[in-house]
């Protein structure tokens, strides 16, 4: 076969890519801090961030209690969703895998809807016990529990069958979906609206205490994920090859599922369900930087943060003074973008 030198793959060099993403991150962060329904001047922002300068108390409040927690939660959630997507896509060797596949979202959704609908009746004990954290805690536990269940089903004699895991995920998704449907049926109008808003995701209610509670888990997932980079690279050649290369195949599977469930569960608990980040971001990063996870994971983390922060800024201003749920913005922007990408690649 003749060697076609033009077929050599063009990629963004890693250091340049990271620099670009960091620059984008700064830009998105700045835009996010500057935009919102409440008009803030640059001087307000500088004054609010400098403790010694006298600042307009309202501006300070908007900045410190609303925009900054939103920014930080958006960065963390975006990063962890994208990294979880990358982990699972590597694990399943399927670029279409997303955290929904192993049941995290379905489990979290079912638990959250249960709290919304049954919180004042059957689950009043739970809501009384956990108070303000009833919903996020339930969502986190639901997500982890369902993932664990799917994994238990797929785990036999010290080995995890990825195919069984996928099938178990599908079955569990269906069951959780039915449960959610049943609860939705029982819900009154008010509850229905709450659960619709939850399932569309939002950063609007971000508080520092949300970050204090969910942030460490997201950070943990982000910090540990790069440890899986090399084994996941090997996984892309197939599980047996990863084994031949000396990796403990089952340990890698367990760790990847655990980290993804941890990250997505923690993020979903405080933001609601936000789709597309976990699917689109790793996909785009793979096109730019290749499939190697040592670059893919950090790049996905940065790009996921950028995307969610930018989407949140858009969600704030598009219908101001009202706000769009961010999940909706992601689907509105992400869907067509992804389609365009597919079409473009098909033509090349």
């Amino acid at each position, binding site marked *: *076969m003749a*060697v076609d030198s033009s*077929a*050599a*793959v063009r990629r963004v060099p890693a250091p340049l890519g990271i620099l670009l993403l960091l620059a984008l991150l700064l830009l998105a962060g700045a835009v996010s801090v500057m935009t919102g329904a409440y008009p803030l001047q640059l001087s307000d922002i500088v004054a609010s961030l400098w403790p010694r300068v006298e600042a307009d108390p309202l501006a300070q409040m908007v900045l410190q209690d609303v925009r900054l927690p939103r920014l930080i939660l958006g960065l963390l959630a975006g990063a962890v969703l994208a990294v979880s997507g990358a982990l699972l896509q590597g694990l399943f*060797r399927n*670029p279409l895998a997303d955290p929904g596949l192993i049941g995290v979202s379905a489990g979290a959704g079912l638990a959250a809807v249960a709290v919304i609908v049954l919180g004042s009746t059957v689950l009043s004990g739970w809501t009384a016990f956990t108070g303000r954290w009833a919903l996020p805690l339930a969502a986190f536990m639901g997500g982890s529990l369902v993932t664990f269940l799917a994994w238990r089903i797929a785990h036999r004699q010290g080995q995890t069958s990825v195919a069984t895991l996928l099938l178990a995920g599908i079955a569990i998704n269906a069951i959780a979906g039915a449960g959610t449907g049943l609860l939705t049926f029982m819900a009154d109008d008010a509850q229905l609206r709450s659960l619709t808003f939850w399932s569309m995701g939002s950063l609007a209610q971000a508080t520092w205490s949300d970050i204090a509670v969910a942030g460490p888990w997201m950070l943990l997932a982000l910090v540990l994920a790069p440890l899986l980079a*090399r084994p996941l*690279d*090997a996984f*892309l*050649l*197939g599980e*047996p*090859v990863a*084994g*031949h*290369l*000396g*990796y*403990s195949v089952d340990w890698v599977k367990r760790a990847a599922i655990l980290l993804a469930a941890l990250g997505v569960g923690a993020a979903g608990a405080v933001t609601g369900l936000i789709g597309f980040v976990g699917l689109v971001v790793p996909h785009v990063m*793979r*096109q730019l930087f*290749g*499939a*190697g996870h040592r670059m893919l994971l950090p790049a996905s983390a940065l790009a996921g943060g950028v995307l969610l922060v930018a989407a949140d800024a858009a969600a704030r201003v598009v219908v101001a003074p009202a706000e769009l749920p961010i999940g909706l913005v992601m689907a509105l922007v992400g869907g067509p973008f992804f389609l365009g990408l597919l079409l473009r690649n098909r033509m090349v």
Partner: protein
Amino acid sequence: MMPQSPPLPLLSIRELGITVGQRSLLSSLTADLWCGELVGLLGPNGAGKSTLIRCLAGELSPTSGDIEVQGRALKAWPRKALAQCRGVMPQKAETSFPFTAREVVALGFGQQARSRQATLDKVMARLQVEHLADRLIGTLSGGEQQRVQLARVLVQVWDTPPPRLLLLDECTSALDPAQQQLVFSLLAELTAEGYGILAAVHDLNLAAQYADRLWLMAEGQLCDHGYTKDVLTPANLQKIYQLDARVMTLAEGYPLVVPSRQPNGGHTVARLKGDADPRPAV
């Protein structure tokens, strides 16, 4: 002739058996492989060659028997240490992700502390894939992919001091004859550098040309093993493959298998056990 060997076999198989449900895939298989030899693993489709290699690679757990590598039970090896002295090339590897050929080869370094660029370049050059280094693996032809995968397997053990073990499952099935020669002459060279190689092959003459010894398998059992000229006999070929063939010894010193024409005019092919045989029994 037998090259000089360490006192212990590199790979020792004792009474190996695998049963899945009621079906016996391998049974009471006993053989040794020594450092410095290239063993050709022959047998018709379904004879259990791949099962044996997957078993030796630790992918499948045997139901009975023992496998030892350098005198140490396979299960007792730490993963990492084993990976440094034993490379495995499966029949098929996934190539659906956008890795370049160079990245795939570099994966062979696995958990080793750092990748050695010189080794990588050398191995890729030896397998004539260096010009493909920056192409996506998925865009390569089957033969190119196979050589890239083999490069990955070689890189994995290249810098390890001998003895080193390679388990290769049809590593040349997609290659053209020139490249098959390239790969097998490289493998033959490697045996002299302290490798023991077990290579499952379909091409009898490729095996005849390069293998020091042959293991002949049928129906999950080792039917015959020994030096190439002793194993590659018309009687064995008839018994194992139901193949009518002459075996000539060439001036080069290795045997050549020449299948006979079938009475029905078609070419003789290796038959699967159970296929209807139109000819009367010989």
